[in-house]
């Protein structure tokens, strides 16, 4: 048992070493042929049957990825060597160090064909510029500061605030109680087994109304008026109302369930495609 564990640790270390070597070849532009791909692949193959946990399998995949990067570098290296521009950098560096400054400059001049360009203003562009200048509004006028807009004070009635959706018609707790009753009624009328499908309850004629209902439903569940039954494999969600509100705090660990109520989902529900 002990030796098997030690063997696995050794295997992980070997893979780590391969990854590090590949990285250093890539980052420091070293000769990619310094890495013996075949022997490294053999090492990966040898240890592969030992890997059981996802972390080890990820390490195995990362090693293969690093080796693939080195193979790509080897291919580029061969391609570059076969081009007419290939020069041994060490040989060139040595040549450059031994050559006179003037000689290097003269060599460049023989291979240098500078571009020709003129920078000259024409009569036509002068006339254009004059026309532009004449039509330009003075800067003082363009950048004139506008006085701040005067906003008068006034009063608004509660009805107006409700109409503008700043205030709700009822107190929130009152609204939640009503909504709970609606859920219970919906379960009796449209539900099955004392529960109703989540979308069948929150779904409404307009998207705005649907979002509003989803928002209130989240409070019903949080405050213990109802619970959410989730069947992940069937991808189904049901709402089950309680007879009496249940105080959930302190009973067990509460969890958050994010539910997407997008416009696309709503349209799917309208078409009967969302269950």
């Amino acid at each position, binding site marked *: 048992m002990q030796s098997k564990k030690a063997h696995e640790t050794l295997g992980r270390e070997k893979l780590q070493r391969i990854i590090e070597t590949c990285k250093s070849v890539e980052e420091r*532009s070293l000769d990619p042929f310094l890495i013996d791909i075949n022997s490294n692949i053999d090492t990966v193959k040898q240890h592969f049957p030992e890997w059981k946990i996802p972390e080890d399998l990820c390490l195995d995949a990362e090693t293969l990825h690093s080796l693939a990067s080195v193979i790509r570098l080897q291919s*580029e*290296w061969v391609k*570059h060597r076969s081009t*007419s*521009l290939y*020069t*041994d*950098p060490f*040989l*060139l*560096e040595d*040549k*450059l*160090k*031994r*050559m*006179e*400054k*003037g*000689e*290097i*400059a*003269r*060599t*460049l*001049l*023989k*291979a*240098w*064909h*500078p*571009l*020709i*360009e*003129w*920078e*000259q203003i024409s009569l036509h562009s002068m006339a254009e510029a004059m026309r532009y200048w004449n039509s330009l509004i003075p800067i003082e006028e363009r950048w004139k500061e506008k006085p701040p807009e005067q906003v008068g004070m006034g009063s608004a009635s509660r009805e107006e605030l409700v109409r503008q959706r700043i205030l709700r018609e009822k107190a929130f707790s009152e609204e939640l109680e009503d909504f709970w009753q609606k859920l219970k009624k919906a379960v009796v009328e449209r539900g099955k087994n004392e529960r109703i499908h989540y979308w069948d309850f929150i779904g409404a004629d307009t998207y705005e109304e649907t979002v509003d209902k989803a928002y209130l439903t989240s409070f019903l569940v949080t405050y213990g008026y109802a619970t959410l039954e989730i069947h992940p494999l069937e991808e189904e969600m049901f709402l089950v109302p309680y007879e009496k509100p249940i105080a959930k705090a302190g009973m067990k660990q509460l969890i958050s369930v994010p539910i997407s109520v997008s416009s696309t989902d709503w349209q799917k529900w309208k078409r009967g495609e969302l269950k």
Partner: protein
Amino acid sequence: MSKRKATYASKLKRATHMLFFKRHAKPGVKGWELRKALGSDYPKVLKILDDYLKNLDLEVKTIFEEDRKTEKPSLEQLDRARFYVALRGDLVPKEAKMVGWRIDDFAGLAITIAYIISKKGKASREEVETLLREKLPGWKVGLNIERYIRYGYLTQDESSQLYLDWRTRAEVDQKALIDMLMGAEIES
């Protein structure tokens, strides 16, 4: 003058204006711009202009997007290529002074370009600076590299790697430079 000749004479003038006067941040004109201004026979107009410029030791140079010389480029490749007017021959050192660069600046550029080519088109700025310090005073090295970048000979990425930029591709015969440097006889 026949109508056809007059048309080409006028197109030749227009092409000369477009190629010589700098219109954008970079000199030169894209193929599609020439097609728009001169018509689809713009390669023929450029050929006539090139023949004319030969006597003045100038040439119309084509730099393809893929940075490869193409024997028979397609119209699409020509449209995406950039066209410049460049010196056909080379400058003697006396003339090079007119450009406003010192001999140190030319030598530094040659070393940098050659070194980057030998490193497969990419070299770290630190390595290039170390190599330049062999021949140039330390305070000048950084300034010169900045100048080469500003003129478009080099470009630098966020990890301080230097690459050859558009002006080197347009102005420097890279193969000739490397061949001449490698073939140079060194006096010992």
